[in-house]
C-alpha cells in the first residue's frame, strides 16, 4: 500500500526574475512500513521536499498525497525530527515526550505510561526528569525521536537528524534508529547528504540532483536486515556506495 505519493511535485521560491526553482518534477512513492531515504548534495532542495510533506511549506506544482489525500498543513500524523535541537527547553525530557499526547488530550496516567515506554525504547528511561540543557546532543535527538514516536504518527519525517552530531554518536544513533524502526515498523522518509547513512538505513534510496532538485534515480537496497554499523563493511554495501558516488560525482561535475 502506498503511504506517500509525490507526483510531479515542483517548488519555486519567489516570482519573476528573482524566482528560484528548488524542486522539479519530483516523483516518489513510499510504501507503508518502508524506510525511504533521499540523498543529495547540500542546497539541492531536499529539506524543502520534506517540509512540503510535513505541511510546513506548499508545493507550487504537482501534488503530495498521504494515504491518497492531499497534504494540507502540518499535523500529528506526520511527525518530524529536525537537524536542529527542538526539545522545548522548559519541559523535562518526559514532558517533552508527552507534548503531542497532551495536545491530543490524553489523561496524565496514560501519557506517562506511553512516555516511559518510548524513553525506554531510546535508552533514556533514567532521564525522564532531566531538563534538555543538561543533555548531550545525542541524548537530545534520542528524546526528539521518542517524542515523535510517542505520538504514533502515520509517517516519520527526519531531516538530517544526526547531522549536528559527532561521528561516534552518529553511528550509535543510526544503530538505535535501525533497532527502533525494526520494533515499531514505522514508515520513514529520511533526508541526508551522508551516503553511508543512506545505504545503512534505507529500503530505497532516492538520489537527488543539484538545484533545481530532481530525482536522478531511485535504487532499492537489498542488503538483508537486521543491519548495524558493521554492515558498512559488506561488499554489497561498497558496491551500492560506488554506484551512488559515481552518480553524484557526475552530477557535481
Amino acid at each position, binding site marked *: 500500500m502506498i503511504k506517500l505519493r509525490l507526483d510531479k511535485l515542483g517548488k519555486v521560491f519567489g516570482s519573476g526574475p528573482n524566482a528560484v526553482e528548488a524542486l522539479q518534477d519530483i516523483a516518489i512513492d513510499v510504501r507503508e512500513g518502508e524506510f525511504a531515504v533521499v540523498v543529495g548534495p547540500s542546497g539541492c532542495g531536499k529539506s524543502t521536499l520534506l517540509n512540503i510533506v510535513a505541511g510546513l511549506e506548499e508545493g507550487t506544482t504537482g501534488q503530495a498525497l498521504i494515504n491518497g489525500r492531499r497534504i494540507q498543513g502540518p499535523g500529528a500524523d506526520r*511527525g518530524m525530527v529536525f537537524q536542529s535541537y527542538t526539545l522545548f527547553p522548559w519541559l523535562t525530557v518526559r514532558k517533552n515526550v508527552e507534548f*503531542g499526547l497532551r495536545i491530543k488530550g490524553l489523561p496524565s496516567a496514560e501519557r506517562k505510561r506511553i512516555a516511559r515506554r518510548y524513553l525506554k525504547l531510546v535508552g533514556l528511561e533514567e532521564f525522564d526528569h532531566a531538563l534538555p540543557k543538561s543533555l548531550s546532543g545525542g541524548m537530545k535527538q534520542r528524546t526528539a525521536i521518542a517524542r515523535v514516536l510517542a505520538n504514533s504518527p502515520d509517517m516519520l519525517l527526519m531531516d538530517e537528524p544526526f547531522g549536528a552530531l559527532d561521528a561516534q554518536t552518529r553511528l550509535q544513533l543510526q544503530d538505535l534508529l535501525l533497532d527502533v524502526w525494526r520494533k515499531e515498523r514505522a514508515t520513514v522518509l529520511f533526508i541526508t547528504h551522508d551516503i553511508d547513512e543512506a545505504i545503512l538505513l534505507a529500503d530505497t534510496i532516492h538520489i537527488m540532483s543539484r538545484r533545481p532538485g530532481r530525482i536522478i534515480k531511485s535504487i532499492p537496497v537489498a542488503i538483508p536486515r537486521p543491519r548495524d554499523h558493521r554492515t558498512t563493511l559488506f561488499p554489497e554495501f561498497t558496491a551500492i556506495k560506488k554506484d551512488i558516488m559515481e552518480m553524484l560525482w557526475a552530477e557535481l561535475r
Partner: protein
Amino acid sequence: MVVPACIRRWAPGTGLTLFSFLALFLLWCLLAYSGTVKELFLPRPHKVLLSFGEMHREGILWQYTWDSTYRVMVGWAMAVVMAVPLGMLIATSRRGAALFQPLMEFARYLPVVALVPLTLLYFGIGDLQKFMVIFLGTFFQLVLMVADTTANVPRDLSRAAATLGANQAQIYRLVLIPGALPGIMDDLRITIGWAWTYLVVAELVAANSGLGYMILRAQRFLAIERIFAGLIIIGLLGLATDWLFKWLTRVSVPWSEKVGT
C-alpha cells in the same frame, strides 16, 4: 567553621562587588575630606548620612521614596501590560507587524523630554502625568524589544510543535510564550531602569513630592548633600529591582541556559 553552601557559592563574586562599592566610597571620602573638591560640589559623606536623618525627621524620606516608587511601578506596569501582547503580535502576525511596527518605530524616536509639556497640558500635574511620562518613555521601546525577543524563539520549536499536532493557539500558548519568557524578563528588567530615569524627568518639571522633586528643591537651596542622598536612594532602589528581577528569572525560568545548570 562550616560555611553554608549558599555563602560559599556567592563568596568570590560578592567580594569583588563589595570591593567596587568600597573603592568608590573611599575615593569619595578622599576627594571630599582632603578638600581637593570644594564642598559646594562634593558633599562630605557624613553630611549626606546626616541629611538622611534630617529627611527622616521631616517625614519625607519614606514618603518621597514611596511616592516615586509608586509612580514608577504604575507607569511601568501600564506599559508592560500593553507592550507585551502587542510586541508578541508584531512578532507573530505579518498584518500586526505592518499595522503597528512602523508606528512604534516612529514613536520611539520622539524624545520623551520634549513630550513633557504636552503631558502637562493633557494630564495636569498629578500622578497621572507622571505615569504617562514613564509610559511614553518605556512603552514604545518595550513593544519593539518584546517583538524582537519573540521573533528570536527558534522557528523550529514552533514547527516541531506543529508536526506534533499543535494548532496556532497552542503554539502561542505552549511554545511562544514560554520560549520568549526569559528574554521578556530581561526586557522588563532593562525598561524598569529607564522608568526611573523618566520618573525623575517628570518630577523635576512638576511635582510636590518624590525623589526627583526633592533633588530639584535641594538644588535651589544648594543642599548638595540632599542631592547625593536622593541619588543614592534611586541607585539602591535600582539595584534592588535588578536583584529582584534576577531572582524572579531564576524562579520563573529555571530551565533557561542563562540561569546555569
